[in-house]
C-alpha cells in the first residue's frame, strides 16, 4: 500500500483542489493512469499515477482543497490491477500501448488477436513521458510540476486545428470526452457559445480577414500552421496573464549618458583583458537600476494572489532573446555585485539561455526585470510586466543627438530613453516617476 500526495503544480503553488476523482476504490490502475483532476491557482492538471495496481482508499473528497504534500489516496501496488492488461513483466508498457485498457474503448476480442494495438490507440498515451519510474513518486510529481501541459492532455488533430483557426485557448476548455479529453464538440461549443473567442486576428489585416476566419476550409492554404512549442506556450500564457490581470501604466524618461559612454570607451579594453568578458552598457545600467530600487523598494516586488510582497534582495531578471524564444534568467543577489560581477553574470546567463543550459533556479524568483531593447535598435518600447513582478524597465538604444543644454547651447550628446511599465495595482505614478527620475540622475552622474 502506497500513498499518493498532492504534487506541487508550479512555482509558489501551495495548495490544490480535487476537482474530480477519475478512479474509484477497486479500479485497476496502470502506470500514469489519471487518478484525479487537480486545480491550483496556476494550472488544472490530471494527476498521473506513479504506481500501478489497484486504487485503494480516497483520502480527500472531491471539492476539497489541501496543501501540497497532503495524502490524497492510496494505491495497492502490483498484482490484481496489473493482471488486467497483462500478466508478465511488461505491464507498464502493455498498459501504455493499449491505451484504452480499462476505458470504454477497449479492444473487442476479435480484433485483439490480430491487432494488439488498435489504430490510433497509442496516440492517447504518446504524450506520457517515457521514463516514468514507478518507484519514484517524487520524481513523477516533480515532472508534473514543471511541465503540467505535456502530460495533462492529449489533443486530437481536429481539436488542434480548430483551436488554431479560432485562436481558442484549449487549456481553459473543460473536456467532456474520455478522461476529460477536450473533444471537437467542446471546441465548437467554446467557439460558438462563449463569444469571447475572437476569430484568428494575426494572419492578415484588411477586409478579407473576417471572411477568411469565417470559412476556415478556404483559408487553410493561405497560411502555415506553426505548432506551438512548450516555450512559446509558456511565453504566451505569461504575457497574456500579465496583460489580463495587471493594469499596466507606461512612462519614459530621456537620459544624457555621454559620460557613461565615455567611461565605457575608456575602460572596455582593460576590462576585457582583466575580466575576460566584453564590457557593455548593460552592467552599468543594471547597477544603476539596483541602486535606484533600494531607494524605491515598492518596485522590487511581486503581486502574489492577494498579497503584495516587497523584497529585500534584488533578484534582477534580464530579458534574453534566445533562438528558442524569450527567457528571463535572474541575477540573484544582483544588489551585491559590482560592474565586473554583473557583466560576468549577464554573459553567463545569456550564453546558457542560448544553449538551453539554464537551470530551473536560474529563471525563478525574479523581483524586477531589465530589458535591453536598445540591442535591437529600438529607441522607445512598451514592455509587458513580467508577472507577478510589478515593474520592468528598458534601456533603449544610445543615440547621438543635438541637445539644447542649460545655457541654450546646442551640443551633441549621447542620449538614451529609459521606459518603465509597472503594475498600477502595486504602486502609483508618483513612485514610478520618482524611480525613473532617480535612475536618470544616476545614469547622468556616471562619468
Amino acid at each position, binding site marked *: 500500500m502506497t500513498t499518493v500526495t498532492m504534487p506541487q503544480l508550479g512555482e509558489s503553488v501551495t495548495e490544490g483542489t480535487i476537482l474530480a476523482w477519475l478512479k474509484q476504490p477497486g479500479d485497476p490502475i496502470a502506470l500514469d493512469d489519471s487518478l484525479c483532476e487537480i486545480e491550483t491557482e496556476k494550472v488544472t492538471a490530471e494527476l498521473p499515477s506513479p504506481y500501478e495496481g489497484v486504487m485503494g482508499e480516497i483520502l480527500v473528497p472531491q471539492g476539497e482543497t489541501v496543501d501540497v504534500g497532503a495524502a490524497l489516496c492510496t494505491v495497492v501496488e502490483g498484482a490484481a490491477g496489473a493482471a488486467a492488461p497483462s500478466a508478465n513483466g511488461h505491464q507498464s508498457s502493455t498498459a501504455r500501448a493499449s491505451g484504452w485498457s480499462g476505458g*470504454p*474503448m477497449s479492444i*473487442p476480442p*476479435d*480484433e485483439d*488477436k*490480430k*491487432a494488439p494495438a*488498435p*489504430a*490510433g*490507440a497509442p*496516440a492517447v498515451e504518446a504524450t506520457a513521458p517515457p521514463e516514468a519510474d514507478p518507484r519514484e513518486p517524487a520524481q513523477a510529481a516533480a515532472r508534473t510540476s514543471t511541465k503540467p501541459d505535456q502530460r495533462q492532455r492529449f489533443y*486530437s*488533430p*481536429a*481539436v*488542434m*486545428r480548430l483551436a488554431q483557426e479560432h485562436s481558442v485557448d484549449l487549456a481553459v476548455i473543460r473536456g467532456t*470526452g*474520455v478522461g476529460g*479529453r477536450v*473533444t*471537437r*464538440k467542446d471546441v465548437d461549443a467554446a467557439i460558438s457559445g462563449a463569444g469571447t473567442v475572437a476569430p484568428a486576428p494575426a494572419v492578415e489585416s484588411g477586409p478579407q480577414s473576417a471572411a477568411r476566419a469565417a470559412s476556415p476550409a478556404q483559408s487553410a492554404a493561405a497560411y502555415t500552421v506553426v505548432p506551438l512549442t512548450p516555450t512559446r506556450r509558456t511565453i504566451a500564457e505569461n504575457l497574456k496573464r500579465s496583460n489580463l490581470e495587471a493594469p499596466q501604466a507606461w512612462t519614459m524618461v530621456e537620459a544624457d549618458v555621454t559620460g557613461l559612454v565615455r567611461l565605457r570607451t575608456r575602460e572596455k579594453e582593460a576590462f576585457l583583458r582583466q575580466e575576460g568578458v566584453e564590457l557593455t552598457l548593460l552592467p552599468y545600467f543594471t547597477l544603476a537600476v539596483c541602486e535606484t530600487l533600494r531607494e524605491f523598494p515598492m518596485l522590487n516586488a511581486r503581486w502574489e494572489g492577494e498579497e503584495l510582497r516587497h523584497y529585500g534582495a534584488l533578484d534582477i531578471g534580464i530579458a534574453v532573446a534566445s533562438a528558442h524564444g524569450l527567457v528571463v534568467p535572474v541575477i540573484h543577489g544582483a544588489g551585491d555585485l559590482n560592474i565586473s560581477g554583473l557583466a560576468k553574470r549577464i554573459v553567463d546567463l545569456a550564453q546558457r539561455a542560448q544553449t538551453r543550459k539554464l537551470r530551473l533556479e536560474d529563471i525563478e524568483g525574479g523581483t524586477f526585470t531589465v530589458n535591453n531593447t536598445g540591442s535591437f535598435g529600438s529607441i522607445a518600447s512598451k514592455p509587458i510586466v513580467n508577472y507577478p513582478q510589478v515593474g520592468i524597465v528598458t534601456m533603449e538604444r544610445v543615440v547621438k543627438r543635438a541637445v539644447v543644454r542649460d545655457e541654450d547651447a546646442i551640443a551633441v550628446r549621447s542620449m538614451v530613453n529609459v521606459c518603465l511599465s509597472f503594475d498600477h495595482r502595486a504602486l502609483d505614478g508618483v513612485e514610478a516617476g520618482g524611480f525613473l527620475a532617480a535612475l536618470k540622475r544616476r545614469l547622468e552622474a556616471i562619468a
Partner: protein
Amino acid sequence: MATMTVIEAVRSTLDEEMARDDRIFLLGEDVEAGGVFRATDGLHAKYGERVIDSPLAESSIIGISIGAAHYGLRPVAEIQFADFIHSGFDQLCSEASRWSYRTNGDSFLPMVVRAPWGGGVHGGQHHSQSIEAYYSHMPGIKVVAPAFPADFRSLLKASILDPNPVLFLEHKRIYRLIKQDVDNAPAETQLSRARITRPGADLTIIAYGFMLHESLSAAETLAGEGIDCMVVDLLTLNPLDTETILESAKATGKVLVVHEDTLTGGLGGEISAIIAEHAFEYLDAPIRRIAGPDVPAMPYHHAMEEFFMPNREKIAAAARDLAAY
C-alpha cells in the same frame, strides 16, 4: 411498381433492360429455371434463348461473357453464390479488367457479373463469403454493392450500360428482408458515388450492403440516447467515392467503418487510410473498424455465425465508445 423487395428490384430491372436492348442476355447456373434466389424467374419464358443455363464452371461463365462482350453483346452473368466466383478470378482480373487498358481505350468490355454474397443466412462456409475486397483491389473492375431496392434498380441499370466489367454484388440476407417504395425513393444514384443516407453530427458510420441496414438500425437506437450518427452508404466499392468519404469524415471527426468481410485487408483498411491521409487534421478520434474476425470462413453453427457477423448491437456499442471518446 411501388413497394418491392431487393430480389424483385433485380428481376424487374433485368426484365426492363432485356426489353430495351436485345443485345442483353443472361447466363448462369439454373437461370433458365429462375435461379436459386429467383432473380431470373419468368425471364426464360419471356426471352427464350437469351436466358442460358451454363455448366457448373465459373471460369467458363465469365470467359463466355468476355467473348460475347467482344462480339458486341451485353452479357449479364449470374454466379450462383459469390463463394464460387474465384475459379473465374483469372478471367476477371487478368483478362476482363485489362481490356480497355490493353487497347489504350480503343475498345471496351461491357459485361456484368451478378453475385449473391454475404452471410447471416445460415449458409455455412461455402455460401456466406464476402468477396468484395479481392475484386476491389483490381483496377478495371467496378464493384457495386447496394443496400436498398431502388439503388439495386438504378445501379444495375447503370452497370449494364457501363462500358466496363462490373461485379454487381447482391447481399443474400436482404433479398427479401428489405422492401422499399421505389417510386418515392431518394434520387437515383450513379456508379462510383456514395450517399449520405442519414445526416448526423456526432460520428460517421460507413457501411454497405446488409451492414448498411444494421448501421442505420444502430443509428436509430443511438438517436434515442442523444448520439447523432451520420450513416454513409458506399454503394460502389471500386472505385471508392473518396469525396463523400472525406466529406462525411470531416463533418464529424469520428469514423466507424463497418463490414462483415474479415478485418485484415478489408475495405475498412483502405477507407481508414484515405481518411487518415487526407483528413488527418479533422480527426477527433482514432478511426474504428467493426468487421468479421480474421477466421477463414463463416461458421455454420448459429451461435458461431452470430459471433462472426457484425450486427446492430456491436455497431451501437462501438459507436457509443467513439461518441464518448
